[in-house]
């Protein structure tokens, strides 16, 4: 069977690849959405944190012989702690100011972190192999899918929906959501709001680091790996609606699929299709597909 001049098996395989990329978008935009939702900070250092997650994984393997599975847990914790330090020392002082200050600070941090690592490791990047357990590939009939890619989809979706569940369905999540609506009132009820913001930022950053670990065996671990991706992820967040949890997950996956199809029909546009969609969505729904106007 042919669809748009493409065999259905070829189309299916491209959609599957789109889903892999969509998983990365989903988990990265989820972290941004969580941070924006509670802190009102446009976290431009998200890409750098993604990169740190990957590079910490590489370092641990290279210098200490720590394997992938351990780092899948350890790297988000380490990078999350870095995030907590950033929030405590720097970001905290900007909450009373305009969004732009937070954006500038995190953008500056990105340039700084990338610059330092680039001068140490160079720009061409470091190779990191997939763990033995996932290194083979499976013949699906219509395509050969590397097992590792299937793992990426599975693990990011699991983490995404677990996060959604915690925020939307548990009491901790209820505090979080209440905090985004009215922080003063939540504090009056005896909730330690500053601690909550710190931990939330740490968690958002840890999500970025987690996807960095997932990406390490797929793309070259390099100081600039985050900056190539982050602009698209920002567009995803804007399309989904700033601060919307489920919105960012669904939009991330959806745009991965659309981008995947663009790569088949007109590859030159694959880096811009997301932005074209962003423009259209903003024209008709300024708060994004799933966002609410405040």
């Amino acid at each position, binding site marked *: 069977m042919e669809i748009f001049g493409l065999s259905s098996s070829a189309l299916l395989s491209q959609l599957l690849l789109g889903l892999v990329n969509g998983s990365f978008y989903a988990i990265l935009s989820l972290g941004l959405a969580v941070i924006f939702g509670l802190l009102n900070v446009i976290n431009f250092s998200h890409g750098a944190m993604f990169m740190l997650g990957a590079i910490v994984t590489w370092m641990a393997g290279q210098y200490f012989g720590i394997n992938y599975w351990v780092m899948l847990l350890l790297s988000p914790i380490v990078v999350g702690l870095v995030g907590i330090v950033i929030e405590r020392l720097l970001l905290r002082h900007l909450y009373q100011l305009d969004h732009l200050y937070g954006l500038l600070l995190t953008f500056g941090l990105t340039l700084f972190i990338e610059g330092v690592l680039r001068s140490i490791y160079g720009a*061409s990047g470091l190779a990191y192999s997939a763990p033995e357990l996932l290194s083979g*590939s499976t013949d699906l009939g219509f395509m050969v899918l590397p097992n590792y*890619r299937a793992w990426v989809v599975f693990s990011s979706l699991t983490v995404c929906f677990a996060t959604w569940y915690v925020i939307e369905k548990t009491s901790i999540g209820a505090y979080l959501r209440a905090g985004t609506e009215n922080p003063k009132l939540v504090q009056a009820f005896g909730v330690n709001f500053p601690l909550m913001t710190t931990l939330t930022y740490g968690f958002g950053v840890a999500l970025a680091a987690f996807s960095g670990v997932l990406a390490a065996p797929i793309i*070259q671990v390099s100081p600039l790996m985050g900056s*190539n991706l982050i602009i698209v992820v920002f567009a995803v967040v804007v399309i989904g609606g700033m601060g919307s949890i489920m919105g960012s997950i669904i939009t991330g996956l959806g745009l991965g699929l659309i981008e995947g199809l663009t790569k088949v029909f007109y*590859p*030159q546009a694959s880096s811009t299709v997301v932005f074209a969609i962003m423009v259209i969505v903003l024209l008709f729904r300024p708060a994004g597909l799933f966002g609410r106007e405040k």
Partner: protein
Amino acid sequence: MIFGGTNSGTALATAKVAAEKKRIYINNGAGTSALTNEQCSPYTIHYTYDTIALANGSAKGMMDKGLKTWYFLTADYAFGYALEKDATNVINASGGKVLGTSKHPLNASDFSSYLLQAQNSKAQVLGLANAGGDTINSVKAANEFGITKTMKIAGLLVFITDVHAIGIKNAQGLLATEAWYWDQSDQSRKFAGRFMEKMKRMPSMVQAGNYSSTMTYLNAVKAAGTDDSDKVMAQMRKTKINDMFTKNGYIRKDGTMVHDMYLFEVKTPSEVKSPWDYYKLVSTLSGEKAFTIPPDSKCALLNK
């Protein structure tokens, strides 16, 4: 005098200003053959390599092995286009065929989609008309998706530092055209050793070319007894270049430094005897055959 420029677009712009101001411009990093062809200038020297030489090296190398059908992965900007066009000319001229092309954005992180399209084309050769991080990620993904089992990968611009970054396991069997390799002669090994001591990595052809061209320039200034652009250019044109970079290289009227180019194949892990021992020589292409041949050139300086 200006050295440098790795982006083809900025290199062409720099060459133009340098010509207006009558300053010598020596480029080692940029690929575009327009520097010495359509947009040649009496003050430009294109020293290490250009897209024509890369195309001649890699495309001819593959054709000689009997691999005649190609699919290109092309970076969507001036350099990628030039590389694809020059390689396509070589392929068509020697009876091969290009079955398809995917033009990907610069610094794309995911190549799997294009690779599957390449595989579906049933071409024998996957030509990578891209560079740096894009080449590295293409080769990695090609291994992951098993493309390397059915297609031979020809990197049109691969630096040894890229091979190092990809890792020998994934890079093995890759064909690459280079102007220079550290393990070629006593002189090149000596230079590479000194570089290694300071930089903790082996020099690429561009780094070696930068060193060689700097020495060529300085020696010409010394011999001419002046740094006047016209006199130094004349001095450089009449002196053969024999150093750690090349043997009997010479600077042609169009600004091309004509020298031998080499087609290398990346060794298998078991063939690697020491760190950075990555290449085995497949063939040597003489400078006259590697770079633009005068009848094909649109450079007015060359044919008058």
